């Protein structure tokens, strides 16, 4: 593999396929168990550079487990997780976080007895570049002006929407190359949902790759370029988001049409 890459596309002879840059994130045939219950069955997916990919499915389909697998909070019994071609599923979760995966987890999981500012600071915990961190503070406050007003407030006292902003902001503070978002729309008013998705698009436009989980399949597929449908821990469908939106199966099961 590496020798082919070293030779380069021009000099590689005749029939050999040109070496493909590995996707930012790749899951290959992952099985995950909770005790004896199998939550994921041979799940494979990939996320390319600067893509927004949506992972949709009903409750309990394995969406959150998939994200936790990527972050190292769950371990695969078999299969691999690769970040830019490098296997990461054997590393500790804190090491994976330091490799540039930002994860805004299910239920937001803020530090309730820390202020908004401290929560954001924790997102940048592993970083040593003070200037970059203060730049990113500015960036997060620009994306979510509400958080600048609430800087000194305890995270536990925020409204649901504000907590979601902190969760996304905290994940951004590590300056991740890929951002994992677990149900950013959950429990928010329609207006806030629109605002959050606008910001998600903005983050992506600025260069961050995004893997998005949603129960709100319509919203997710409208935002994403590609999508995967999880059913009972298996990838049932995948393809460009526009195809999934018009697929009769998806329309019946997830879009209520």
């Amino acid at each position, binding site marked *: 593999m590496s020798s082919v890459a070293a030779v380069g596309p021009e000099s590689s002879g005749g029939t050999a396929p040109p070496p493909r840059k590995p996707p930012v994130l790749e899951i290959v045939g992952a099985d995950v168990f909770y005790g004896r219950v199998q939550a994921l069955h041979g799940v494979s997916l990939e996320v390319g550079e600067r893509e927004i990919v949506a992972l949709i499915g009903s409750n309990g389909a394995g969406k959150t487990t998939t994200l936790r697998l990527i972050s190292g909070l769950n371990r695969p019994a078999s299969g691999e997780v690769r970040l830019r071609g490098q296997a990461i599923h054997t590393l500790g979760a804190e090491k994976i976080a330091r490799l540039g995966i930002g994860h805004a987890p299910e239920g937001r999981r803020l530090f*309730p007895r*820390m202020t908004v500012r401290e929560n954001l600071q924790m997102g940048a915990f592993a970083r040593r570049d003070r200037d970059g961190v203060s730049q990113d503070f500015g960036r997060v406050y620009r994306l979510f002006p509400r958080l600048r007003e609430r800087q000194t407030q305890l995270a536990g006292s925020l409204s649901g929407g504000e907590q979601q902003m902190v969760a996304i902001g905290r994940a951004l503070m590590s300056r991740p190359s890929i951002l994992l978002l677990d149900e950013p729309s959950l429990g928010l008013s329609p207006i806030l949902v629109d605002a959050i998705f606008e910001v998600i698009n903005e983050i992506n436009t600025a260069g961050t790759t995004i893997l998005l989980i949603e129960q709100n399949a319509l919203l997710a597929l409208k935002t994403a370029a590609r999508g995967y449908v999880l059913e009972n821990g298996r990838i049932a469908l995948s393809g460009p988001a526009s195809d999934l939106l018009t697929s009769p199966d998806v329309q019946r099961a997830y879009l209520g049409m």
Partner: protein
Amino acid sequence: MAPAGLVPRVRRPTGAGRAIPVLRGMYRWASGNFPAILLLVIALTVIGVFLQGQGHDQGLTLMGLQLRNALVLGAIYALVAIGYTMVYGIIELINFAHGDVFTASGFYAILIATLFGLNGLAAGGPGGLVLALLILFPVVMLMSGLTGMIIERVAYRRLRSSPRLAPLITAIGVSFFLEGFMLTRAGPDNVPTGRSAWITTHAFTFGGVSVSWKDIFVVAVALGLMFALGAFIRGTRLGKAMRSTAQDRDAALLCGININRTISVTFFIGSALAAAAAIVYTINLEFIQWNLGYRLGIIAFTAAVLGGIGNIVGAGLGGFLIGAIYVFGGQLVGGEWSEALIFAVLVIILTFRPVGLLGVEVTTRA
């Protein structure tokens, strides 16, 4: 998040209180006004002590004397209580071995003092005393800190994702192991600390109450270390790692925090503070025994629960309050009742106010 028996999710009257509305109302009232009621009871006890002394025309002197004693004792309880509360805060384990780490620290102090000839050094004047303390504190705190870290690594880490009862039982096992070990090494009898002669000078007398430098030293060490700990937890990276790990372990992992190292540091600090308490204890009293930490540990644990287990400021406050209850209560009803009073307080807290004085409502911790 918390063991069902200790910190129930919802405070709710049980037994008769559930059935009888009047009792339910009384329970709510006692629970809601717990801090005020406790302070009132302590104040009444102090007044009782005053009146007792007033019978011999020495009310204020007796009160002042016991206040001094309460502060000295409370300082030691506070330092030990912080270790319980820090460990509980971060892994929700009541580390029953903590009291025995306190005892072990006392023996470490005797060992180091002998090894380095510190007793002779301390007797040689103020300079020598300061030098002896500057050697004794760091070395013994380091040894105890490492002891705590090793206990966590060997006995608790593997059980971190087990049901909560498993590490609790292991903690009791570690406690028995340490006590048995110290019993075989030091024997069943009192062991002279040799340190009670270190600081003997009288500082001042105020209203008939004589205060020695020893008393001032104990309280100053405790307060100094508590403020240092506060600054460490608020201001340093490791301190922030500890706070965030205590609040949400998975989220801390997602922020790139090394959980194992953070928990190790927590055990190190808690044990080092117990070591400081043990050193001031050996400077204050003439003997230690192999099972010293058993009861002292449970009393300090009560202080941690009183302050609100998991809350470091609460543990410090609880230590001094428990010291006051021990000393003033004992003076009022007889010293042999002191411990019974403390454990009665423990039962009352767990019944009426399991979150303690400054405890965090469990619902906000999830």
